[in-house]
């Protein structure tokens, strides 16, 4: 540890100033727009935003999809992580690599795949029409389900990674011991696995939830203007209606939601332990 504070600051401050000037200050100004009116400071921008049914619907839909995606990825994540941990070390590494792989690939490419699958001439519709379940292709794209599936595929790996690293820390004999002593699988999960992996669940949950809230590409490609989420609504407000007050309100909502998710979930993790 060096004690020369000036030297330390000289090394650390360029990075901090860079982020402050080119990142945080412009964002701060944008956030302040919604609080300004002709007569000074006010909350009118917010009242006006939430007085419109469309905006409220988009707000609730974003929250709902975020929670659904986080919940679904927790369920699938636990099943997958449990399987990965019970593999022998060599195949464990390989399977884990396959789970991480999609994270390296452009989200545009990852979302584009669903157009091929869910589009009018996509595989799912081919099967539906082929089996005679419907005479004409069904609209699968531009639905909430499509956005849900796209987001789930995008963020599931983050949950699996967090849960696998949490489960690797469970002592080996604990689960067999609980089974021998007569616990059902449900009891094993609720009373052994869940308490011991809570931190991983919280980290994974935060990553997935905030990721889903702030994703742009997936709702843009798979939801379009039929299934708006806050990010795509923000884009529309700026590019279609030039409405910067609403844009500023949405920006604040997004920032508050992702900060709150981070803080609340961290607190849950530390209190229960």
């Amino acid at each position, binding site marked *: *540890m*060096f*004690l020369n*504070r000036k*030297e*330390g*600051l000289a*090394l*650390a*401050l*360029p*990075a*901090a100033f*860079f*982020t*402050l000037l*080119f*990142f*945080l200050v*412009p*964002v701060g*100004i*944008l956030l302040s727009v919604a609080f300004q009116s002709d007569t000074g400071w006010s909350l009118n921008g917010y009242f006006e935003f939430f007085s419109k049914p469309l905006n409220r619907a988009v707000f609730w839909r974003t929250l709902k999809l975020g929670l659904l995606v986080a919940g679904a990825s927790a369920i*699938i994540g636990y*099943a*997958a992580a449990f*399987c*990965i941990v*019970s593999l022998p070390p060599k195949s464990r590494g390989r399977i884990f690599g*396959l*789970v991480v*792989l*999609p994270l*390296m*690939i*452009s*989200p*545009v*490419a*990852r979302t*584009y*795949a669903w157009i*091929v*699958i869910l*589009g009018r*001439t*996509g595989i799912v519709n081919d099967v539906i029409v082929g089996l005679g379940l419907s005479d004409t292709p069904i609209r699968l794209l531009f639905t909430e389900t499509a956005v849900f599936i796209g987001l789930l595929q995008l963020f*599931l790996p983050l949950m*699996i990674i967090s849960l696998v690293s949490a489960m690797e820390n469970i002592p080996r004999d604990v689960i067999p011991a609980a089974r021998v002593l007569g616990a059902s699988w449900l009891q094993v999960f609720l009373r052994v696995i869940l308490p011991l992996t809570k931190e991983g669940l919280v980290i994974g949950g935060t990553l997935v939830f905030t990721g889903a809230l*702030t994703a*742009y*590409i997936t709702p*843009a*490609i798979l939801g379009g203007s039929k299934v708006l989420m806050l*990010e795509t609504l*923000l884009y529309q407000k700026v590019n279609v209606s030039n409405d*910067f007050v609403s844009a500023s309100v949405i920006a604040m909502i*997004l*920032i508050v939601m*992702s900060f709150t998710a981070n803080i609340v979930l961290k607190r849950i993790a530390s209190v229960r332990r």
Partner: protein
Amino acid sequence: MSRLSIWIILGVTLTFLIGPFLIVILAGASAGEALSFPPQGLSLKWYAKVFTVESFRASFALSMFLAIFGTLTALLIGIPAAYALNRYDLPWAETIRTIVAAPIIVPGIIVGLALLRYIVVPLNVTITMALFMVHTALVLPYAVRVVSSSLNNLRGDMEEAAVILGCTRFQAFTKVVLPNIRGGILAAFILGFVTSFNEVPASLFLSGPGVRTLPIDMLSYMEITFDPSVAALSAILAFLSVAIVFLAERLLGFSRYV
């Protein structure tokens, strides 16, 4: 659980995660004119066509420029910051850490809009310059974190010994510390490169005539045309990122640092 049920669960999960890519790769290899799966005959014409589209070439060059120079700049200011946060008794260390980490939490779309409105327009900064600022700031938290974690593994008394033996502080850094955290720096570069190259939300509002990053260009191409070239391009990009990360893992055990 039985072996069979383990492999069934993993098989279904991996099909969901990776299957769509295989479909994109095949859809891009279609001989037909419209996007479809199964492809109407196989050909590589869309894979070849991607390289002839002028806007893709321009946006690819821009994305490469941002990913390389944005990440290098982030490392240039990020390595000293990581070093100072690790080795010095800093006043306001927590504040500095929070500021530098902020770009991870603030949604990108907001940043792009904010820069466009309050830096590009009033200060007459070019779009390319603004993109460069955003990409550098976005990569910076990763650079600081990855370099910090490799500094943590290096004992601080080595530099102190070097200083006692007559090195200046700067020499101690370049001769003792730098060679030892080389792997971490390379890992940070790769992580930063991939993050910047794939970035969309922050670059969304920062596009002008002829100035667009590749992912944004793909998004707008997709809205106009429905041919398999975006599928082919997606497959090429996916292959490139996977190859880079795979090589990094093989050569330096990338995952140790991330």
